[in-house]
C-alpha cells in the first residue's frame, strides 16, 4: 500500500470540476446501473419515448446522486 501523490492526484482531486465528477460517477462508480439503463434503451431503441426506461434510470440516478453527494 503506497498512496503515491500521482495515484491520489490523477483520479479525482486535481480535476474535480462538477462535470468531471459526474463523468467519473456515470462511467466508473455507477457503471453497473449505467449499463442496465443503456441495455434497456438498446433493447427498445426503435420505439423510445419519454420514460421508456424510467425504472432503470431511477436506479442509475439514485446511484449518481449518492456518489456526488459524498465528497
Amino acid at each position, binding site marked *: 500500500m503506497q498512496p503515491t501523490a500521482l495515484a491520489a492526484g490523477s483520479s479525482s482531486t486535481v480535476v474535480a470540476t462538477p462535470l468531471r465528477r459526474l463523468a467519473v460517477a456515470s462511467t466508473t462508480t455507477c457503471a453497473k446501473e449505467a449499463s442496465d439503463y443503456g441495455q434497456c434503451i438498446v433493447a427498445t431503441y426503435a420505439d423510445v419515448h419519454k420514460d421508456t*426506461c424510467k425504472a432503470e*434510470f431511477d436506479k442509475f440516478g439514485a446511484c449518481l446522486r449518492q456518489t456526488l453527494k459524498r465528497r
Partner: protein
Amino acid sequence: MLATRSRLPPLRSLASLSPSQINTATRSPLQVFDRHAKCLQKDRAAARDGGNRSRTVDYVRDDVANRMIERFRDIKRNFSSVLDLGSGSGHFAKLLESDQTKKVTMLDLSKLSLERDPDAEFEVQVERLVLDEEKLLDMIPRNSQEAIVSCLSLHWVNDLPGVLVQIKEALKPDGVFMGAILGGDTLFELRTSLQLAEVEREGGISPHVSPMADPRDMSNLMSRAGFTLLTVDVDEVSVRYPTMWELLDDLRDMGENNAIIGRRHLLHRDTLAAASAIYKELHGQEDGTVPATFQVIYLIGWKPAPQQPKPLERGSGKTSLKDALE
C-alpha cells in the same frame, strides 16, 4: 415604470457564449450557425492552457491534413501562393513544401487560433489574415488566386453554395480548389446517443450536433458553383475514446462546440449521464472504448479556362469501343 426598475434582471446560471445579435425570428433560413459564437469558441480553445490543450487535440485535423497534402502533391504544378481557408493554426500549411509552393496565406475567423504556432514551424513563407470565410470576396480580389485549399472548416459556414461560388470567383482561370469538409455521418454516435437520451429523459430533442453536408450533394454543389473536372471522395477517420466525456472535452478543445443558432446552452446532467450510458451500450467496443467517426469528404475542382481539357461533343466519337475491347 417604477415597479420594473426595482426588479433585478434574472440571474444567469451560466454565461451564454454569444450575446447573439441574431434574432431567431427574422434570420434567413440559410443562417444555421452562430459565427460570432464559433469565433469565440475557437479563440478560447486556442488560448486554453497556453495553447497546449488545443495542440493535444490536433490529431483529427493533422490526420486529414496529411491525407490532403498527398492529393496536393499529386498536382504537378508549382504555386507561387496558396490561400488556406479556415486554416486554424496551419495544420495543412505546415505540410506544404518549398519546392512546390512559395507562399501560403492562412485565413481564419479566429485570430488566436491563427496565431497559435510561430512561423518557424512552416517550411514556406506565411501570411496570416483574420477574415470570415463567408466574406471571402471582401478582402480577396476576384481572379487573384492560383490555388485555394480548405481543411475542415467549411462545415461551420452558413451558406455553403455561396462560399463555393466565392471561392471560384477568387480563383484565377484554371486555378484549383481543394477542400476537406466533414460529412453527414460525422459524430453519428454522439448524435444518436444524445437524441435517445433526450427523448427518453425529457421527451423532446434539440440539435447538439451540427447538420453536415451529404457526400452525394457535394458534387452537385461543386458543379453548381461552376467548378469543372471534379473529384469527390469520402473517407472516414475513426477515433476511440475511453468514454463519451473525453470526446466532449476534446471537441471543446478543438473549438468544435455546438454553435447552432437557437441551441440550448444547457444540457441537463441527467440527460448527459443517460447519453453516456447509451453511447457505451449502443456503440461501445469490446475493449471498453467508445468510437467516434469523422466522415471527411475530399473535394477537388478547377475553375474553367479555355485551355483546359474538355469532353468532346456527344456523338462525335469515331472509334467504336467494341472494336477497341475485342
